[in-house]
């Protein structure tokens, strides 16, 4: 059975994923590239994870999931970026048909939804392997990750 804390954390990320799916945010003033910021956020998260989790088999399993999560998040961001660029391209063509828009949106939204599910599933696995205390300690790094995703969206 899910604990209250677990539900909170799962939904924190579930809502994030949905927000990412629909998002296109305002500009940022960071000097580092959004990709660099995200890579750093993932590395920081992993470094903290190795310090916080004292059980080696669990730590190894968690690191594998974080690496997979990074790949999935990047794929999700890429799909979101493709949707924006693809739409702008079709729209710019005066002769684009309604069917072209429909086919495009159907395909890209399907990819985005599937990718979003992958991300939340991975995050759920991650949370299952962490104790509540470990999750609390990782929270700061978790929010840095979220911010890095938002930064990437801003740049998309």
């Amino acid at each position, binding site marked *: 059975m*899910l604990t*209250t804390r677990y*539900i*909170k*954390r*799962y*939904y*924190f990320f*579930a*809502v*994030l994923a*949905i*927000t990412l799916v*629909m*998002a*296109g*945010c*305002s500009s940022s003033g960071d000097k580092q590239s959004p990709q660099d910021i995200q890579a750093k956020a993932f590395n920081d998260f992993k470094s903290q994870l190795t310090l916080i989790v004292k059980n080696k088999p669990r730590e190894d399993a968690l690191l594998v999931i974080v690496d997979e999560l990074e790949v999935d998040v990047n794929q999700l961001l890429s799909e979101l970026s493709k*949707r*924006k660029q693809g*739409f*702008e391209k079709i*729209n*710019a063509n*005066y*002769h684009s048909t*309604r069917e072209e*828009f429909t086919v495009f*949106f159907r395909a890209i939204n399907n990819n985005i939804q599937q990718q979003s599910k992958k991300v939340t599933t991975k995050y759920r696995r991650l949370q299952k392997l962490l104790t509540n205390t470990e999750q609390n300690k990782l*929270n700061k790094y978790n*929010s840095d990750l*979220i911010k890095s995703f*938002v930064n990437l969206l*801003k740049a998309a």
Partner: protein
Amino acid sequence: MLIAIYLYLSGGGSFAILDFIEEKQDLVAAVVMDDARKKSSLVIIKKMTSRAKEFHKQRGASKKQAKKLIEKNADVDAIDNVISTNFEQYKQYNTVMLDLRFELKEHVTEKEWQKIFLTSK
């Protein structure tokens, strides 16, 4: 912290992909030369703006609802329901905005369209 980040994410600019068309209002006014067509085009852009505002209001309400459910630690199905309702609203919004996009096209020539939409935002 959960809610703080959620609100932070909610605060960002435009979330719907078709919104950028209504942001081209000034360009439409400048590029479409014929007065009657310009007037009709601007009426459509106004409709788009109004629909976009309505959609953002709906989305804001969904977010508030989701936030409340999170605070109450509601079960998975209740929150999934809010999220899927929001996605349905998004699909409807997209359909209406596309209709308006094609309506707009009826009043704009190909050359004018290119001037409006081939430039970056």
